[in-house]
């Protein structure tokens, strides 16, 4: 955590040094120094910050159609963003959990969750992430994200969720 903070400070410093110079008006007769806040660069972002859904076009999860494990365009964009984070965090590993909705039998859904997690893993590998940094697990229909017996809940529960893994791959 301390190392990460130090990196953040360093990165902000470097970024400020390179960027504010060009945005500052050094040749004009106006001597005021304008100042603006920069977004924290990628290496400083925690997974939680990086995947905060309100701030980004993606989150820590992707969704699947009923009884399917193929990735749609939204899912692929999200997984590309995950791959960028992993490129910026060389020490991090992730755990990808595949989930299913309640509208399948328990054992089949464990198999389906495994297929979903693997589909995500395979795309990350295709994007250059080392296979040893990705671990997968299936929870089938055992860990729904939301309670409810309707299609809205089922849609939110048919998902693959990624998070940094402490256990290594």
């Amino acid at each position, binding site marked *: 955590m301390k190392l990460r903070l130090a990196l953040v400070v360093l990165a902000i410093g470097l970024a400020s040094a390179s960027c504010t110079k060009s945005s500052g008006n050094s040749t004009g007769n106006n001597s005021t120094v304008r100042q603006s806040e920069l977004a924290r660069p990628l290496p400083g972002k925690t997974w939680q910050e990086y995947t905060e859904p309100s701030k980004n076009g993606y989150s820590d999860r992707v969704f699947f159609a009923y009884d399917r494990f193929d990735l749609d365009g939204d899912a692929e964009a999200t997984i590309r963003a995950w791959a960028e984070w992993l490129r910026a965090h060389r020490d991090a590993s992730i755990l990808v959990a595949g989930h299913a909705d309640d509208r399948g*039998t328990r*054992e089949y859904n464990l198999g389906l969750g495994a297929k979903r997690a693997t589909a995500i893993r395979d795309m990350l590998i295709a994007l250059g992430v080392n296979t040893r940094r990705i671990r997968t697990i299936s929870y089938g229909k055992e860990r729904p994200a939301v309670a409810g017996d309707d299609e809205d809940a089922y849609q939110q529960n048919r998902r693959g969720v990624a998070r940094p893994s402490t256990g290594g791959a």
Partner: protein
Amino acid sequence: MFLPSPKSGPCRRLILAILLWVAVPATAAAQLTVRIDDPNFEPLPIAIVAPQASAGDERATAERIAGVVTDDLGGSGLFRPIDPNAFVQRDGSEVLAPRFNDWKGIGAEALITSRVFHRTNGDVRIEFRLWDVSTGRQMIGRALETRRANWRRLAHKMSDAIYRRLTGESGYFDTRIVYVSESGPVVNRVKRLAIMDQDGANQRFLTNGENLVLTPRFSPSAQEITYLEYVGQKPRVYILDIDSGQREIVGDFAGMTFAPRFSPDGNKIVMSMARDGNTEIFAMDLRTRATERLTRHQAIDTSPSYSPDGSKIVFDSDRSGRQKIYVMNADGSAVRRISNRPGRYATPVWSPRGDLIAFTKLEEGSFFIGVMRPDGEGERILAQGYLAEGPTWAPNGRVLMYYKKARGGTAQLYSIDLTGRNERPVETSESASDPAWSPLLNN
């Protein structure tokens, strides 16, 4: 059947001894039977008289035994226990010499009379007789004895004997159910393995809820359970010894193992293993630890179940694009699809009698529990629910248990007769799913 057992064994397990066997030879004429496959069947009216007893605590035991036998036989849907308030002949000591005209008068066709003794060594003994009221003939005369704390098993053994004598089928009352007990919020459900008698008595937990556990199934000896447990983010198949609580992992697999079942001889476990997203079926020999891969397909191949002779395995697979039921030889050869109707077909379980396969079906937003013959013909739907899943067979192959969940409700266990009659909730202390029925208990 009942086998005599030594009066004291080193294992100190339940001792049930046959001390009396007075069976009057049955004659062919007008045998009293319950024809359970008859579509116009009516439950057999039966009078179950509380056992005659002398001391007060014996009388209490006698009342409790009569209550369990009444619940067993009445709960089967095959018998209609007559309200004891209607009995004309009430005095226990008189009942040992039945006045059959009195019993005919209240519509009884079968009559059970008995006596209970508490012995000084702490055992309880019951002597019971089953009578054919119309002929006055004794159909069973038998004594059972056990430690007093096990009185419920005396009652269940008694019910099994009566059921067998009157239906010609073996009973299922002296059995247990292992299941998953559920508590806590839906998004963070706590699941514990639990075990109880078939009638819901003697519930106890086998795991503490720390780890997610699923799909318990009995070994043929009813002493062990194979199930799925998530240990340190590794979902793997385990075997749990019920009495010792010892847990042992089954095999050393790189991927998730799940959907386990014992082979009928108890020597193997068949299960699924998911690796690189591909779920295949494997069998592992528990003695040699050798594993054998039985399926080779990109699809999800899971929920395997052996035929009772161990020669075949039924399973479900979405290799056709949708979940359907397949049968293969136990070595993985000769795979053929047996379910050919629309809908998703899942969780096939071979009946202990071998004649039927129970399954879960999903169609048009509903779940169904049904049976079909091993060739896929003769499909019959027995039960339906918003969610209904995971049938398990009573050891006589006449009754199924499964779990259902209503929309917005929680999971609960149900049982149903193979005829589709008599669907009944099975009471548990918490929400419950994934039931598995034990074989008949020994001794």
